[in-house]
């Protein structure tokens, strides 16, 4: 079959060209990206040539001859000529994954990977693309050493948070993103991930400090795809996924709830039938004094009007469904010697597993560049238009309410239309189904325009000037309508529309001069530049009440006739920076880099507005030395490089007005429903209604002496390659010291509401080790595989703790504090099991509320009384280590990969235990987890769950080691099986590639700590559930 196709193609070509030729020609491109590859060595039996800069080649060859294509960094490719008339061959070379000649963008310039002296992780973008999340940062989880990503399963992925090399600072761990030279700090889910060509993570200060004041959390450099010269390419990628609820909390059903309520009552010696929850119990005491529940009796209806029928609702089932994720991308690109363009469109739609939640993203990109004046001037732009739209979880947190809502409450009243809800005596938790249904049209729209325009001028040989203007504009508008409702005794006869709009305009202008030249074996790369960054955000909101219709078409302010309110504010800040960088190398063996940046920020007071951030790094490529290349060492090591870097980076993530005393008028104050309003208006004239006189109150105390928070990092690294670079890797050890950490600490009450003040507080240190290894294996021409893994660890401790923040991180404010301990350490009581015998109760220290089946707290100071002094440090949330493991293999036309990621040894605060293990510790009267059914009773003396009680007299809500569990887990994050159509079929179909695949994300929890009693150790705090996702997709290139 194959032969016939080849033959037919050959015949067609030969017919059309009328004559036999003794030469073949074509273009050599990189397999995954279709980038043309220049200087490829092309060898036939008698002839040899190189491809030109656009990958074109032409070689004389005979039919049946095998031509070899080889180039450093690529797998050598053999092509057997079946017909020499094949004049338009496209030869695809597969890059060796750890190509040392790969060019990486590092701080306003590019470097070859082999010349790098800083700690830089180069992310395999293809691995990220396999996951269905809207946020590439979420997909980064486990993919790079020293990069720790956490996040829940929200459809937008916007909750993902990333931490590079430990907790470097306290306000925000977000790194700085540089996308095509434009800095930005957030919202990666708003941009189309499939436009990403490459991603580099600058982890250490020597690499990142060129970005100065915003680089303390590391820098992620993203370059988007460009059009390829001489090659019109059209590609389409589409996938559809189904997501399912993976880890569901088991909560009590109606019967179980009754049983727990009865047990808590009899434990307390309270008549179980005095509850306000409609449960009646038939129970007895047997001759042994054992309480026996004979029967739980529930009324047929919850209310006298008989509109709510008693039922057994599983609220988690009611609020969730299988979600659907659709992702389509179309890319068109072309180029020639004078320029190129790339146009792409993306459509991402994620209907979450929580009903009515969804996230939609439409994106468009146009990247282009043109060369003018004999290629001396290049102008170009990268421009994207992105529109996202999201319906999130309704407020209040529906996941929490699905746990709390009572199972006896029906979703609907008997007519099937009205909402079920709590009746008098029950908790005031809303019907979560109502919440999500009433919220289904409450979305926000976000329009983000992101892009840059640049001009590159080659002034002299090696001297280039570049001016880059970037803009990141966001327009957010939301409309939220609160409908009237009746749901049990909860009701509202007032509807309210809230609309809000905000605009964020971030602009930056950078000008750089770059001089690159070689002087013999000396290579010099000098960069000088300035950058100006300006951000202005303004927002307003308005609301009205009283809409006669609740139809979507009426949900506009004009249609409301009730109370009107509005508000708005703005923020502005600016940065001005000067920087320089010198890279020097000698003979590719000795490498050095120096950078210096002087950054000014409007956020700081005049006294400390500017900060200087220096860095240097040194490298020695030992494998280039003669004693390596000419000895046995050369046979073992294909590459060996030692690196050292030192540098400082800064952080300025504070309020834009932190240096000022702020007085604000707050007419109404916050929503007074659930918290104190702190309004400033008062009816001093006693008129009872009408506009009130409003004052203002101080809401912030300025700190004119604020200064930069600085991180100083030293990094020792080794890059190595063995077996002709089949096995490559790197090891890095770092020490990162962060001083004068900027915080707005909680404050003593006597300061009043103006006590809020930004200060330079604690200092801390992270030390860590990172290892990344890649092995490229080849069994035969048909079967190759790649294994890569990374593992990293860090140890954090607070090294300095000034008075101003002594009590900001737990402890008792004096003798017990976090100094010398890891940040985030848990401070509380030590739970020492349960009291199991009366003797234990009698002999223990005085503990208010102690008793059989109650938690026994340790008397740490041994004074015979359990009090606030009996607290200590009971856990460390920082993992022992984190790791990721990727395996991918290709056999003929099939490819298969999986990715495992894990976290080891972190303590988590499983605060959900308050809901799963206790009746009355948190939110009594609400539903609970099934673990309460295995609570301690005299008949169940070995239980670990404390006895149920109606009131928490033993104060088990106190933060104790009872809530601390190990957060260790290992998850199968992704698995994919793909099939690519053979070349021959493709040619017949006039396609350049066609691949179909199936796979999934978050497929299995392979391992978790036995001590963890919750559902998903990754999200103990219980956000949007991380779903299990099954995906099928196709990618086609023309």
């Amino acid at each position, binding site marked *: 079959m194959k032969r016939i196709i080849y033959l037919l193609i050959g015949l067609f070509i030969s017919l059309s060209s009328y004559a036999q030729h003794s030469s073949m020609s074509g273009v050599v491109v990189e397999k995954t990206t279709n980038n043309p590859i220049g200087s490829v060595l092309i060898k036939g039996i008698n002839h040899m040539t190189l491809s030109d800069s656009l990958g074109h080649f032409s070689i004389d060859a005979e039919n049946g001859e095998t031509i070899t294509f080889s180039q450093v960094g690529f797998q050598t490719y053999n092509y057997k000529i079946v017909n020499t008339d094949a004049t338009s061959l496209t030869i695809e070379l597969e890059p060796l994954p750890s190509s040392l000649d790969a060019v990486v963008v590092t701080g306003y310039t590019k470097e070859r990977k082999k010349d790098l002296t800083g700690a830089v992780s180069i992310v395999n973008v293809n691995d990220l693309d396999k996951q269905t999340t809207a946020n590439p940062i979420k997909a980064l989880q486990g993919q790079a050493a020293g990069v720790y990503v956490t996040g829940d399963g929200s459809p937008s992925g916007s909750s993902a948070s990333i931490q590079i090399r430990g907790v470097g600072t306290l306000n925000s761990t977000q790194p700085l993103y540089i996308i095509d030279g434009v800095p930005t700090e957030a919202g990666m889910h708003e941009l189309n991930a499939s436009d990403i060509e490459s991603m580099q993570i600058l982890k250490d200060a020597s690499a990142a400090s060129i970005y100065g004041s915003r680089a303390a959390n590391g820098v992620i450099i993203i370059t988007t795809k460009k059009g390829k010269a001489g090659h019109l390419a059209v590609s389409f990628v589409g996938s559809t996924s189904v997501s399912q609820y993976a880890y569901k909390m088991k909560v009590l059903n109606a019967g179980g709830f009754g049983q727990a309520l009865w047990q808590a009552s009899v434990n307390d010696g309270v008549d179980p039938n005095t509850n*306000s929850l409609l449960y009646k119990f038939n129970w007895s005491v047997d001759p042994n004094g054992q309480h026996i529940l004979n029967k739980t009796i529930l009324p047929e209806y919850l209310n006298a009007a008989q509109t709510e029928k008693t039922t057994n609702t599983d609220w988690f089932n009611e609020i969730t469904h299988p979600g659907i994720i659709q992702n389509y991308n179309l890319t068109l690109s072309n180029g020639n010697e004078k320029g190129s363009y790339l146009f792409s469109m993306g459509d991402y739609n994620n209907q979450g597993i929580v009903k009515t939640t969804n996230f939609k993203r439409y994106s468009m990109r146009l990247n282009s560049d043109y060369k003018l004046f004999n290629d001396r001037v290049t102008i170009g732009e990268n421009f994207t238009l992105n529109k996202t739209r999201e319906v999130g979880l309704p407020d209040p947190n529906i996941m929490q309410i699905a746990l709390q809502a009572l199972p006896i409450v029906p979703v609907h009243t008997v007519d099937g239309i009205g909402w079920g809800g709590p009746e008098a005596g029950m908790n005031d938790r809303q019907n979560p189904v109502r919440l999500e249904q009433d919220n289904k049209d409450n979305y926000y729209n976000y329009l983000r325009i992101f892009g840059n325009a640049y001009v590159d001028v080659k002034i002299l040989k090696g001297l280039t000037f570049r001016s880059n203007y970037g803009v990141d504009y966001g327009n957010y508008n939301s409309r939220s309508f609160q409908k009237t409702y009746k749901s049990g*005794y909860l009701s509202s006869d007032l509807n309210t529309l809230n609309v809000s709009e905000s605009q964020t305009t971030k602009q930056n202008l950078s000008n750089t001069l770059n001089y690159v030249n070689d002087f013999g074996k000396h290579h010099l790369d000098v960069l000088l530049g300035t950058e100006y960054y300006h951000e202005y955000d303004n927002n307003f909101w308005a609301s009205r009440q009283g809409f006669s219709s609740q139809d979507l078409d009426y949900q506009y302010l004009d249609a409301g006739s009730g109370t009107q309110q509005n508000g708005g504010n703005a923020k502005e800040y600016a940065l001005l920076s000067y920087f320089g960088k010198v890279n020097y190398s000698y003979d590719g063996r000795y490498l050095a880099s120096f950078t210096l940046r002087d950054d000014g920020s409007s956020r700081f007071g005049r006294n400390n507005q500017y900060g200087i951030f220096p860095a240097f790094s040194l490298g020695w490529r030992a494998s280039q030395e003669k004693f390596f290349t000419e000895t046995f060492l050369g046979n073992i090591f294909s590459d060996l490089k030692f690196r050292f870097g030192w540098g400082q980076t800064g952080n300025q993530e504070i309020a834009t007005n932190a240096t000022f005393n702020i007085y604000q008028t707050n007419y109404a104050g916050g929503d007074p429903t659930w918290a104190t309003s702190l309004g400033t208006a008062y009816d001093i004239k006693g008129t009872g209604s009408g506009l009130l006189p409003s004052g203002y109150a101080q809401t912030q105390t300025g700190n004119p002496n604020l200064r930069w928070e600085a991180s100083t990092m030293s990094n020792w690294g080794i890059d190595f390659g063995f077996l002709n670079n089949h096995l490559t890797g790197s090891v890095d050890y770092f020490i990162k010291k962060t001083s004068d950490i900027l915080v707005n600490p909680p404050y003593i009450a006597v300061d009043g509401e103006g006590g809020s003040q930004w200060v330079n507080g604690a200092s801390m240190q992270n030390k860590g080790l990172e290892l990344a290894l890649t092995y490229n294996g080849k069994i035969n021409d048909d079967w190759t595989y790649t294994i890569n893994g990374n593992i990293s660890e860090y140890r954090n401790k607070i090294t300095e703790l000034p008075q101003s923040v002594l009590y900001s991180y737990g402890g008792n404010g004096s003798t017990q504090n976090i100094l010398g301990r890891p940040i985030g350490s848990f401070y509380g009581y030590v739970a020492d099991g349960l009291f199991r015998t009366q003797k234990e109760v009698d002999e223990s220290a005085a503990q208010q509320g102690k008793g059989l089946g109650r938690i026994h707290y340790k008397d740490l100071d041994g004074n015979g009384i359990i009090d606030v002094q009996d607290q200590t440090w009971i856990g460390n949330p920082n993992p022992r280590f984190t790791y990721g493991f990727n395996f991918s293999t290709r056999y003929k036309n099939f490819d298969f990969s999986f990715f495992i990621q894990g976290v080891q040894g972190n303590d988590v605060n499983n605060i959900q235990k308050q809901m799963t293990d206790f009746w009355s510790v948190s939110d009594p009267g609400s539903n609970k987890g099934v673990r309460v059914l295995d609570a301690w009773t005299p008949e169940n003396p070995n239980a670990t769950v404390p006895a149920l009680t109606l009131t928490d007299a033993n104060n088990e809500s106190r933060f104790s080691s009872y809530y601390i569990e190990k957060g260790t887990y290992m998850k199968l994050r992704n698995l994919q099986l793909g099939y690519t159509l053979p070349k021959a079929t493709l040619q017949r179909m006039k396609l350049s590639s066609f691949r179909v695949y199936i796979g999934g994300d978050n497929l299995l929890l392979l391992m978790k700590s036995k001590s963890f009693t919750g559902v998903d150790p990754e999200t103990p705090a219980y956000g949007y559930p991380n779903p299990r996702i099954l995906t099928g997709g196709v990618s086609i290139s023309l």
Partner: protein
Amino acid sequence: MNLFNKKSLSTAIIALGLPIITLVSCSKKLDVNPKGAISQEQINTPEGAESLVTAAYAQLGNDHYDQPFSLWEYGDVRGGDAYKGGSGTSDIQNFHFIETFAGTLVNFGEVDALWYDMYIGVSRVNAALNSIESLTDAQYPLKQQRIAEMRFLRAHWYFQLKILFKYVPYIDENADRSHYDTIGNRTLSNDQLWEKIAEDFSFAASNLPQTKTDVGRPDKAAAFAYLAKTRLYQAYTQDDQNNVTGINTTDLQAVVSATDSVLASSYHLESDFANNFLPGKYENGVESVWAVQYSHDDGTQYGRLNWGDQLSVPQGLGCCDFKKPSQNLANAFKTDANGLPLTDTYNNSDVNPFTDNVDPRMDHTIAFPNKNWKYNSANIFLDSWSRNPAVYGNYASLKENVDPNSGYFFHVGPFFPNAKNRIILRFADILLMRAEALIELGRQAEALPLINQLRVRAAASTGMLVNANGSPEGKYVVKPYIDGVNIAWTQDNARKALRFERRLEMAEEGSHFFDLVRWGIAATEMNNFFAVEKTKWSFLSVGFFTKNKNEYLPIPQNQINFSQGLYKQNFGY
């Protein structure tokens, strides 16, 4: 290649020049001012001062149900006048522990938040004072009056803090914020703290106008009234363990002279007791010496409503049925055939609100099933209105509530706050304080007519307590004390009568517990209360008042920690 052709050179010059131009033009671009905020300069102007004063008043209305400035939990529930209520003991569980005294811990969030919110009140006052004092009288003709108002407000906050926590850090406008960390809660002694509060009220009394310029501001009489209240509390001297060690006659004299000024003012008793507890035209009446002003339809989302007392709306009207009047309190309204209270035997049997002789103030204070809700015979309070009668009974508190049809009843979320003002100083209270001082001074004869004024007014307050058919809702029998006729008006009997009268008159207005502590009888009274009441209600079975401890709340541990141990915990905790 020609390295230095003209074109290259000019390009190079432009290229090098551009960054420099950028820098020069940008150097001022780092001067960015905050947006939408008032600058420090604007604060120290007469307008700024006025605004800070308004905000200081506004804090009076910024209370919340779990840190209520009405102190219903701390004054009424802790004093045995009400049960916590709600769906069960675990509904605002910490209030259950505070109610039974058995489990009051040093780290209750509700207590910490109350402390914080009160200090916000203090800090707003101090900010206003700093601004006012930076101005001259010429710039700001209202200067002295506003200073007096602010000091009045500050003293109000400290008074509240004082009766709750006993030892509190005293911070005024002269203390620099950077030195707050040197001011402990024992920097001033018990008596010095009272003295500070009294100083502010004295200043206010001397500098406030005779009549209010705005109804929400205090006047001279209000300052004298609060001064009297302060001196009365101060008079009962206490040791560190909260034992009442004596009674200071100088302070008592001060009560008498301060109340002289109030009596000389235009304030007097309402003709009907009910008028104090009705919204709208009844607000800021002749008996309301000083009140928190609530408002509705005022441009805020829900109105500046009474968020502190909203939970006491019965479930049948909305939510959440907290603050259930106690059986003990209900029984206290029983009267004998002579119309006098059964001071010793009132609790021997439970009152029948329909057939027993009662003081009419009972039906103004407590809602009983099948009686009118807030004087509205078309809206009968029913047994079913209670949320969990098996635990907390089926009464409801009336004074802070309104008729749902009054136009002052609102629905916000699950809650039903109202817009009725909260009276902080009621003329009746001043009469009682004066009577108490006179009795303790041995001038009980002068106290008798004061007490009787209230009893006579009570007797006259039955006009609204009628059924739909016009018949009275209960058997109202209340008479004044007549020395030698129905009572021997000795100091002891007068004291007993005064204390009982005070409970009846001021019931559910947030003060009974503080009266008991002032008189030094909290332990005895509360343990007597528990002894009987726990036989009626199982949730009180753990109730026990620990003498020398439970008189005051613990200093919030959080604040002790923030102070790095400078604040000292109260005795017993």
